[in-house]
């Protein structure tokens, strides 16, 4: 049900763009106003979100550790699993962000018939997640060819490698196929596994359908329906040059659907679970070095507490203690 509502929501979004451009001829709204708005919302509210996170104190070191902590020099310690300094954290974060190391440890826990608890490998989520994120990144980088006048060599290289197989015309991008496949898996996983279905919410399904819609509209536009791509670049270049204008040659409506879904994603991004893009860099269980023993960390929330020491206590009651025959430290 949640999945169906999310699916319908994305259909409605696509329909809004279709009606807005094809029927009401609001090219300027959908081609200029909404993209600017979406990018502004994305950048501003991402910053707001990050500052909000940054303003909560980190009183304790709480990194998850899976290895020996640095202690005495002759005890071998685990630099990546239990980092003791900046370098270790950088290495750990690089592996986490680029290769999802912690997800690689994902296990399948099962109770066997003879009531033995067993753990098995479960790498599918990791593999699909990695395929999805990397494809998405490559697709994003590739799209820079629409936003740069002299397309940087790095972007052209990425594009060349992505279309390396030279299948069909226009050349098939491998990442297009990988992204669609991976996201289909990620969706089916939520539907097929009962526990996952129970846990999944609207805001899990909606981004999946939205990104699927973006990828599908892009694939349709590139390989099947086609549009005047030069006009598209004229539009995008006018946008990034802050002199927006809708090109004279009409751009087909599939482009505006693609664009509107992307704008939705951009505007939705800072308020959804997708902010894990920034959050991964700010999770205390990952980015903190385990220096609990080496350094003293003081809780910034601490307020001055009036302390009544034992010496003071004894000063107050020394006579009574002596009368009662209790030992005192100071005569």
């Amino acid at each position, binding site marked *: 049900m949640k999945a169906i509502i999310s699916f319908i929501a994305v259909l409605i979004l696509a329909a809004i763009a279709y009606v807005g451009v094809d029927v009401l001829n609001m090219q300027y709204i959908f081609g200029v106003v909404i993209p600017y708005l979406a990018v502004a919302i994305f*950048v501003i509210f991402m910053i707001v979100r*990050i500052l909000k996170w940054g303003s909560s104190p980190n009183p304790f070191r709480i990194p998850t550790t899976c290895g020996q902590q640095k202690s005495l020099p002759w005890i071998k310690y685990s630099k990546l699993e239990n980092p003791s300094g900046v370098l270790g954290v950088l290495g750990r974060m690089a592996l986490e962000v680029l290769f999802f190391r912690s997800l690689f440890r994902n296990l399948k826990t099962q109770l066997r018939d003879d009531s033995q608890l067993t753990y098995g490998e479960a790498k599918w989520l990791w593999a699909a997640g990695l395929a999805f994120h990397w494809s998405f990144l490559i697709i994003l980088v590739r799209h820079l060819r629409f936003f740069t*006048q002299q397309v940087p060599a790095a*972007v052209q290289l990425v594009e060349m490698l992505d279309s390396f197989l030279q299948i069909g015309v226009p050349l098939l991008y491998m990442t297009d196929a990988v992204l669609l496949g991976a996201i289909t898996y990620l969706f089916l996983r939520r539907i097929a596994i009962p526990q996952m279905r129970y846990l999944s919410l609207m805001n899990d399904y909606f981004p999946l359908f939205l990104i699927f819609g973006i990828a599908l509209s892009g694939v349709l536009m590139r390989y099947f329906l086609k549009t005047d791509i030069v006009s598209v670049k004229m539009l995008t270049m006018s946008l990034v040059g802050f002199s927006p204008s809708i090109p004279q040659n009409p751009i087909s409506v599939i482009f505006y659907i693609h664009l509107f879904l992307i704008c939705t994603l951009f505007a939705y991004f800072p308020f959804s679970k997708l902010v894990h893009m920034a959050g991964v860099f700010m999770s205390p269980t990952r980015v903190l070095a385990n220096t609990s023993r080496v350094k003293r960390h003081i809780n910034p929330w601490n307020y001055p507490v009036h302390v009544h020491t034992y010496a003071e206590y004894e000063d107050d009651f020394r006579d009574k203690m002596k009368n009662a025959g209790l030992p005192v430290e100071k005569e």
Partner: protein
Amino acid sequence: MKLYDGGKILIGLMVFVGIATFPFYYNIGKVNAKPELKTDTPAIQAWEKQYGKKECVESKEYMRSEHMQLLNNWRDSVVRDMNRQYVSMTSGRKFNMSLQNGCLECHSNKKQFCDQCHNYMAVKPYCFDCHIQPMEKEENKS
């Protein structure tokens, strides 16, 4: 609002803004050269004189978005089926399926025709990996 680990967070934010706004500052100071296609080669002018208008094998709009697919189909048709005859869907005229002796016969100005859009879009078709590039006279380059 107090920021904890503010230095690191600000560095991160700067990196984020730098990446997110990359297209906005990358193009500053670069000439926004839009593609300008020239369709006034002698062959096209001769065609215009004979038939009264400029026309390609299909309509302009169709060629604009489908030419790569058309050329791919032509290649398959010629190489696999030995069929070199193309009948236009728009005019019903017959054309010789050939890049060098067809397309480039009229559009002999590759630099001012093909390359205009391809360079603009950073597309590198592999036509001329096999085919011979047309010889262009100096006056066509301008």
